């Protein structure tokens, strides 16, 4: 009804159609009655002459009566209920910032938005506390020692595609990062004995609000040649007020950044062969979305929000721009890609940086920012939102949303530092994380969930071809009301965990991309939020589960997937919260905090427990270490404690090994022990 009030024209048409149909109905009835009477009368007169073409006449009249109704039904159903949404999307050429304004206006009108569609960014205001500014102060100490080439790298999704992390090792040093400090500690010195763990270098960056040089490290990469720090630089609009009489006129307005912010991603590349000398500095405008590194090529994805609410917004100012050692390059509007249906609220830019030549390649897309980045060796896939507008939305007004929110998958081809927009596909639902995607033999597989709770949940697995057209889709995975908790693709198989009450662990056969099917299923209490293949036959799962079939505990499982049609639990460990208060492991949401080494036969993960007493919280933080093999499963190795009965969580986040030494890192310490006996600390150094 509201719809009709909103659309008087449509209401009028409906009224006319209804009137016409009723009139036609009456006419048909009248014609039927009168001709029947005629026929009867003539039979009474003993004249038998059947009326010719009576049926076709009535059929014609009926169809004439129903035609407008059918037409209206067709139009309305096409306009309002498109069940099948095209997979491909349309690209639109841009010439200038005016085109962007036009796109924005159209989009805005379509959305009829009064709400915050564009997801205004809110910053973590704790990021930088106004302390003394220290300009990348470097403490140098003497060092000697050798490196080992047997060490643990970052636990990445795709082999060969490095992911940025906050603790790294290259076999010689351990690189740690905390707030505005990056520290390099000499870790491996076999010649000197294992008792050396020296802080070798500290980079301390300014984190003062109005300092133009402020820098907040986000993560690091290290390889044989380079040590790279990537971070944010926020340029707040720190105006100086002219104070009232007698008041100092130097009031700083740090919250000005809400309105006049600009953020830059800074990449600092240090030359390892030259004692960590700063070699190159890259600066990109916008906010950080994601990064990967393949060989000596660094890929960075940024997003720069265009504040259209500001009537005097200058789009040029937000157009993608990068700086290599001070040399500025700005994107051209002609090179910007706009994908029909995406909210034109920001520039998403894909950068490819050749670290050897400092050559930068960029591809800018006007659209909504993405939230999950998956990078294979050949392509980057950024998942974001796209709106599928119902046809005719420009002509009719609907009280319901005029669009269906979908997942847009932007595909950018990467090749040796070069980036090129390839295509955009759409799927229904939202993807959970980077592990929801996987590229295999040119096909992209992605799992999504539609809905958050209740009956309308639909978990899907899509197989898309190189152009991101749908090849196949498996729908309604899991039981009703279950959502996807983790996905892992391994070659021709996908492993999927859905959860609501129990944990069905699904094995999906993707050998034929056009015909995926659920091959095996295992139902157990609890659920895994992270899956990592240990071998072809075993899968590690980390998640939640307790001793009474609930989820109030940390659960680490090894699934035996040798028989794909019948996965089983090979071994599992449960830490029931009931036994120690409460606990958590960051591995349940950050795969990079997990250490898995089959060559060393161990897994290690941070695990903190806490309980509350009269004296406040008591934290016990450390790293859990288990020996694993495929005969006995898990065997407890040790719990490396970083803090006991502490009132504050020291946040233990990483474990690494170099050769036979085991390093654990928290906000406060790096501790070293041996892999054989992880609990016996050989040496410990205090950080920060």
């Amino acid at each position, binding site marked *: 009804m509201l719809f009709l009030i909103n659309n008087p024209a449509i209401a009028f048409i409906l009224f006319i159609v209804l009137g016409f149909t009723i009139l036609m109905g009456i006419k048909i009835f009248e*014609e039927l009655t*009168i001709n029947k*009477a005629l026929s009867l009368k003539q039979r*009474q*007169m*003993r004249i038998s002459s059947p009326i010719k073409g*009576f049926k076709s006449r009535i059929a014609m009249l009926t169809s004439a009566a129903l035609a407008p109704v059918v037409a209206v039904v067709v139009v309305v159903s096409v306009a309002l209920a498109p069940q099948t949404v095209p997979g491909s999307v349309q690209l639109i050429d841009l010439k200038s910032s005016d085109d962007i304004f036009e796109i924005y206006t159209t989009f805005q009108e379509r959305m009829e938005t009064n709400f915050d569609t564009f997801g205004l960014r809110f910053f973590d205001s704790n990021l930088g506390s106004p302390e003394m500014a220290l300009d990348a102060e470097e403490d140098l100490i003497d060092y000697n020692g050798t490196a080992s080439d047997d060490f643990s790298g970052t636990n990445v999704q795709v082999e060969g595609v490095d992911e940025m992390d906050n603790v790294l090792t290259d076999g010689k040093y351990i690189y740690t990062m905390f707030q505005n400090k990056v520290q390099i500690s000499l870790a491996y010195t076999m010649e000197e004995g294992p008792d050396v763990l020296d802080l070798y270098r500290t980079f301390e960056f300014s984190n003062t609000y109005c300092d133009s040089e402020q820098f907040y490290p986000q993560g690091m990469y290290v390889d044989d040649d380079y040590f790279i720090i990537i971070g944010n630089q926020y340029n707040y609009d720190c105006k100086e007020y002219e104070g009232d009489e007698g008041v100092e006129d130097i009031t700083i307005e740090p919250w000005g950044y809400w309105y006049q912010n600009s953020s830059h991603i800074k990449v600092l590349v240090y030359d390892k062969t030259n004692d960590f000398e700063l070699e190159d500095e890259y600066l990109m405008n916008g906010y950080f979305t994601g990064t990967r590194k393949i060989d000596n090529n660094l890929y960075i994805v940024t997003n720069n929000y265009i504040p259209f609410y500001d009537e005097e917004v200058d789009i040029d100012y937000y157009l993608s721009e990068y700086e290599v050692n001070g040399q500025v390059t700005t994107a051209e509007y002609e090179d910007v890609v706009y994908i029909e249906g995406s909210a034109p609220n920001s520039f998403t830019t894909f950068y490819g940086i050749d670290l050897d030549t400092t050559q930068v390649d960029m591809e800018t897309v006007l659209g909504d920012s993405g939230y999950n980045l998956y990078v294979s060796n050949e392509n980057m896939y950024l998942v974001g939102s796209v709106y599928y507008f119902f046809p005719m939305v420009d002509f009719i007004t609907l009280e319901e949303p005029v669009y269906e929110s979908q997942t847009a998958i932007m595909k950018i081809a990467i090749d040796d530092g070069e980036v090129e927009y390839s295509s955009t596909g759409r799927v229904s639902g939202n993807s959970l994380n980077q592990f929801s995607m996987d590229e295999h033999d040119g096909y992209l597989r992605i799992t999504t969930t539609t809905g958050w709770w209740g009956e309308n949940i639909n978990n899907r697995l899509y197989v898309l071809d190189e152009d991101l057209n749908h090849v196949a889709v498996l729908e309604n995975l899991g039981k009703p009301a279950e959502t996807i908790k983790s996905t892992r693709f391994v070659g021709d198989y996908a492993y999927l965990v859905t959860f609501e009450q129990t944990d069905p662990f699904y094995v999906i056969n993707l050998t034929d991309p056009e015909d995926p099917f659920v091959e095996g299923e295992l139902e157990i209490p609890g659920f895994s939020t992270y899956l990592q293949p240990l071998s072809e036959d075993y899968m590690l799962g980390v998640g939640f589960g307790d001793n009474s079939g609930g989820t109030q505990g940390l659960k680490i499982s090894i699934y035996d997937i040798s028989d794909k049609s019948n996965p089983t639990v090979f071994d599992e460990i449960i830490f029931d919260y009931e036994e120690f208060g409460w606990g958590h492991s960051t591995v349940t949401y950050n795969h990079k905090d997990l250490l898995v080494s089959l060559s060393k036969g161990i897994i290690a993960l941070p695990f903190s427990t806490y309980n509350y007493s009269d004296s406040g919280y008591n934290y016990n933080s450390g790293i859990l270490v288990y020996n694993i093999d495929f005969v006995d499963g898990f065997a407890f190795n040790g719990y490396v404690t970083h803090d006991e009965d502490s009132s504050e969580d020291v946040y233990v986040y990483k474990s690494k090994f170099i050769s036979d030494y085991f390093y654990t890192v928290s906000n406060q310490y790096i501790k070293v022990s041996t892999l054989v006996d992880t609990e016996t600390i050989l040496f410990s150094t205090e950080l920060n």
Partner: protein
Amino acid sequence: MFKLKVSKSEHKIIKERLNLVETINYNYLLTDDKELIEDDKVNIVFNSSEITRVTKLLDLIVRGEELYVIGSNEFGQKSVESRNFFYFIVEDEDVYGVLMNTRLLIKTKLYEIEELLEHKDFIRVSKYCLVNIGKIDYIKPALNSKLDLLLKNSEHLEVNRGYLKDFKKALEI
């Protein structure tokens, strides 16, 4: 006009073969069983082998007395059985009787013809026109609440609003 009284199983077949329409108010009773005759009606008792003859008899009963209307055309005067006329129409104060292939000039007033053919299922559709119900092929109700009559000779006639009621009555609606 008729009532048929035969055994239930044969009722439908006999009714069809007699081309019979039964009515609630009837003058004639047809039966194949002497026992079923009704005293106050005209009873026709037949046996099934006579059905063809009974049919002819019924035709005669229904048509009643043959009524002839005299008219003339360019070939001279003719006397035509009333049921062969499609309609009678007044044109320039002359009355014409329309037949399948010709029309005859009738020297009688239209109302006189109407009176004459009172029991012959002719019905006035307008001030100037009297139609043979048996010659109507199809009736299309028009949107202006008139009726469009398609005759068996493919001619069209209109039932004017003022005559609609009587027309419907004639069709027993």
